[in-house]
């Protein structure tokens, strides 16, 4: 259970072993839920990650990478920032692979002037290099155009790691998640399996709109 002002989020149990999407309307408690799991706000109850109870640990020791809706500006040049994060987590050898996987090679020498989509990919790269046990994502594509959104979500789908993915877009949830949970009034009402096949066809059609341009 977590509170933000007078608003209370109460979740009995939420198990995340693959990509689990939480969908809900504005003010349903999705971000409060993520903040509580990340340790940004106080919560009662138990949060387990990496096979251990992390409820009493600060966010920096929970092993949960938190990607936000408004991407954070890299504090230094992109390559230096990624190396700094990688060095801290003993993942220096993985920098090249993560950069290739996200297709951000051209961004490495840049410091400022990144678009929102580029910043979000850099944020995801840093999150990957922090070697977390799981990802918390709070509407990570809400500021991205459709193609960048798809690119980001394709990476999320291919992570092969637990991801708690918050969105208010049910179509996006269906595309990215294996399980979709509906949240309302601070509670999770139900969880259902994701339905990808049909939607992937729709996505392919939508992607074809840009195909002559790419």
């Amino acid at each position, binding site marked *: 259970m977590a509170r933000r002002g007078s608003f209370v989020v109460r979740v009995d149990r939420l198990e995340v072993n693959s990509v689990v999407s939480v969908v809900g309307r504005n003010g349903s408690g999705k971000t409060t839920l993520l903040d509580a799991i990340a340790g*940004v706000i106080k919560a009662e109850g138990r949060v387990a990650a990496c096979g251990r109870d992390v409820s009493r640990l600060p*966010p920096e020791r929970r092993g949960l990478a*938190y990607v936000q809706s408004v991407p954070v500006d890299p504090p230094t040049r992109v390559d230096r920032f990624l190396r700094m994060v990688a060095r801290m987590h003993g993942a220096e050898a993985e920098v090249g692979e993560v950069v290739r996987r996200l297709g951000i090679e051209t961004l490495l020498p840049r410091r400022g002037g990144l678009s929102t989509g580029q910043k979000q990919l850099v944020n995801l790269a840093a999150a990957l290099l922090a070697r977390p046990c799981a990802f918390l994502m709070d509407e990570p594509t809400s500021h991205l155009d459709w193609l960048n959104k798809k690119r980001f979500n394709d990476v999320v789908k291919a992570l092969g790691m637990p991801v708690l993915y918050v969105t208010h877009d049910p179509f996006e949830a269906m595309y990215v998640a294996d399980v979709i949970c509906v949240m309302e009034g601070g509670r999770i009402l139900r969880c259902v399996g994701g339905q990808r096949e049909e939607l992937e066809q729709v996505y392919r059609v939508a992607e074809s709109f840009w195909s002559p341009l790419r």
Partner: protein
Amino acid sequence: MDSFAKAVVGLTASVLLLLMVALPLLYVDPPPPGFVESFVLTAVFGLAASLLSLVPGLAAAVAARRGGAWGALAQVLYIPAVVPPTSVGVLLLASFSLPRLFCGGGVEVLCPSASFVSEHVINRPLGVLIAMAVMALPTSFSIFDGALREERAEAFFRALGFSGLRLLLLLLLSLRSATASALVFSWVRSFGELGVLLIFASYPVTASIYIYQAWLSYGVGPAVGASLAVIAAVAALAFVARRWLS
């Protein structure tokens, strides 16, 4: 921009330019000697004070965003902005005069502190720096508080494993636009600081003290000359700095 907004901006700017530049020009006389020294001194000490205020201002903004007791405590940084600057000067003077009071009262262990304060703090360069840094804190705090409302950078960097001073430095660099604003605006503000400096650290002479003394000793004309020179120099430097930093 909407035409009504244009009219309001035009009217406000015109009135300000009229009152603060055009009409005073009718009085202008060359500033008395010492203008350049006081300006440079204010610029240097103002910059140092602004730099000193960045980390505490950011830390307070982070605490304020978290809420709770630490968030409430962070609001203390607003005190210099909400009480008269003369009160801040008086309070600083009282606090720094305590060792002398106790030393005179027989607490000899405080006598070295008393002599340090009178030799190096009150009406000394260190005093100017302390006064300006105290007055810069609310500016830094409010700018970072606003920036962190927009962007939840702290949660992101903490989740990556950063904490302590490293976290604050990353935030300073990541929120570079806010950092630049905090630096420039608290630096610009140091030129306008009179009350606290007049009482706590009136020497070495900073720009505001210089203008005040010019008015007392030479009348309105030289003080107007010095004031307009400060306006022109600060506005130009702040504009250049803001463009360069952002």
